[in-house]
């Protein structure tokens, strides 16, 4: 019984952490885009109140089941990613295949964002959904190859083991290409920053065009939560997990996740939105070869 209670408490803590990261992501993104910091910090609360008050709407012949599934599924995926992160000694859901589960969860976003665009039965939504799949083909392969690098170096797919095997030198330092490709992937499945064309403004918001009220709120929270959760997963993968002086491990994980989220979101806010063909070019022609070379370097180091 106490185990169950403990589990519930930990789950609540993780949910709070992911939502806090979502808040940080939203504020940092706004600051990166030029909004004053005070407004950027207060905007999430104001938008939550505004959108909760707003009425829901639908369109003609919308595929409501798939539409709502796509929209409301983003936040649970982010929470599940949070459950994979070893916040202390081990994660809420300890598994020896944490890396592969993290990858599976971010592939779920493929389905969810396309369904979000499809379900609305609107031109803007369809264009956004298809753009997302094209974009996903560009960032997903570099992301998957980037995930191979820390797993190779630690000889394990377990996030806790990978976090523990970074004594001395964080993986982010000697696997920069993998780290960068991973962060690009995070921006991709969070549909933010340079990879936010599926929700781009030239198509009236793309997949967001027909949403209102609570439906829009969960999608926006979900996007930022995905960015935060992706950054949280990067902490054991590339930033040494909970290692650090003085403070206990969970605090370090939270601090690192927060700093990474804020920096990534700030950068995403500063960079312009890339057009989809451009990202496909960059992803396949530049980033993928670099990451494969990175994997080669890691493999050589590990074998030696």
């Amino acid at each position, binding site marked *: 019984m106490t185990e169950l209670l403990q589990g519930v408490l930990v789950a609540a803590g993780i949910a709070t952490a992911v939502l806090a990261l979502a808040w940080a992501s939203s504020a940092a993104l706004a600051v990166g*885009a030029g909004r004053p910091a005070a407004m950027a910090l207060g905007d999430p609360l104001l938008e939550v109140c*505004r959108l*909760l008050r707003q009425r829901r709407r639908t369109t003609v012949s919308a595929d409501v089941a798939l539409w709502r599934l796509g929209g409301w599924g983003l936040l649970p995926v982010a929470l599940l990613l949070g459950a994979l992160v070893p916040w202390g000694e081990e994660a809420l859901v300890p598994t020896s295949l944490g890396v592969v589960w993290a990858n599976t969860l971010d592939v779920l976003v493929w389905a969810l964002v396309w369904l979000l665009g499809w379900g609305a039965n609107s031109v803007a939504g369809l264009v956004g959904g298809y753009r997302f799949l094209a974009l996903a083909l560009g960032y997903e392969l570099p992301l998957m190859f980037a995930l191979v690098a820390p797993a190779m170096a630690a000889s394990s797919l377990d996030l806790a083991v990978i976090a523990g095997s970074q004594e001395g030198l964080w993986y982010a330092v000697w696997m920069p290409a993998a780290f960068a490709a991973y962060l690009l992937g995070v921006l991709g499945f969070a549909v933010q920053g340079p990879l936010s064309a599926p929700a781009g403004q030239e198509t*009236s918001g793309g997949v967001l065009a027909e949403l209102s009220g609570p439906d*829009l709120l969960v999608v926006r929270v979900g996007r930022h939560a995905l960015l935060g959760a992706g950054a949280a997963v990067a902490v054991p993968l590339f930033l040494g997990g909970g290692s650090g002086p003085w403070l206990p491990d969970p605090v370090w994980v939270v601090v690192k996740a927060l700093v990474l989220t804020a920096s990534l979101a700030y950068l995403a806010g500063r960079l312009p939105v890339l057009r989809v063909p451009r990202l496909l070019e960059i992803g396949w022609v530049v980033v993928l070869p670099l990451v494969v070379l990175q994997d080669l370097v890691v493999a050589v180091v590990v074998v030696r």
Partner: protein
Amino acid sequence: MGLTQQLLGLATRRPRCYVVEAPGGASQRMAVERELDARGWRPAWSPASADVLVVCGELLPELAQAADLLWSQLPGPRARMTVTDPGEAGAGLDEVRRQLTDDPAQRRAARERDRDEVSPRLASHGDMDHGEMDHGEMDHGEMDHGDMDHGDMDHGDMDHGDMDHGDMEMAPGGIALAEGADDRDGLEMDVLTHPLGPLLDRWPGGLELRLTLHGDVVGDASARRWGSREQDRPFQVAAWDAVATTLSLAGDERGAHAARGIRAAMIDEVEVPTGSAARLRTRVARLAAWSVVPDSVATTLLDLTSEADHAPRPTLRVGELVRGRDLADVRLLIASHSPLLATDEHEAAARD
């Protein structure tokens, strides 16, 4: 109760306004944008999540229906305002905020709206008289659409309910299915007629663009101008307005904000801060180099904002400009070329 009032205050602290420009309403729109910037209210990018509909300029009777269709897209609680005098933009925004905060009135309006507009749950098949409702999809010839951007598929709350499929040929929800035609690669793709305008955010007022889409590529385009010729304003203002709108559409909020600052300086006829114009031009060139905006967009913007004395005559045909581009590029192209677009009505359609 105190908590409800507090939450209501938070919910209406910074309403999202969907700003559309009526023909001849450019200076009013710029005044509204300035007011919104000063208050820190971010504009809405789609009417589906907007609180306020702001119509800038005087609305022609022909476009009133378009504005009403846009109004019906707002989910509520909602407010509406028309700005005819640039100076009263601020007062108008205060007023709409007060209207949004008035909860009992909003609830009343919502109940009336639910009663008046047919809901799919309440209406039966026999009650609907298609003649009364102007959904535009039934009669493509007339200008019945308001919110063009959402095209044929979007009615907000309205739905035609459950159709008996046997009665009419393949027209779910009353909208006919698309026919196929060859696109630029010779593949047979469904053809979608997607109207943009005449009332749309960050769009020249009164320009109605009918696109024939294959997927998201424009195969054919025909344009029509509603409303009279725009009032004369200094060309440089229009040029920097084009820069601001394009950068806003491209997602570069910082650049758009800077461009709006330069535009305001031009309107007020004060000295533009040294170097800011040059910095912004470099920024636009860099965006084209990174392929964030198409090359033609950046070239046009740089030409417009160069120090040349003469203002080019507006003679560009919209149809030729957008043929073969994809849907997102269309918005960027129209925004960047807006001072150059021909302003006569009934333009000839550009054939593929």
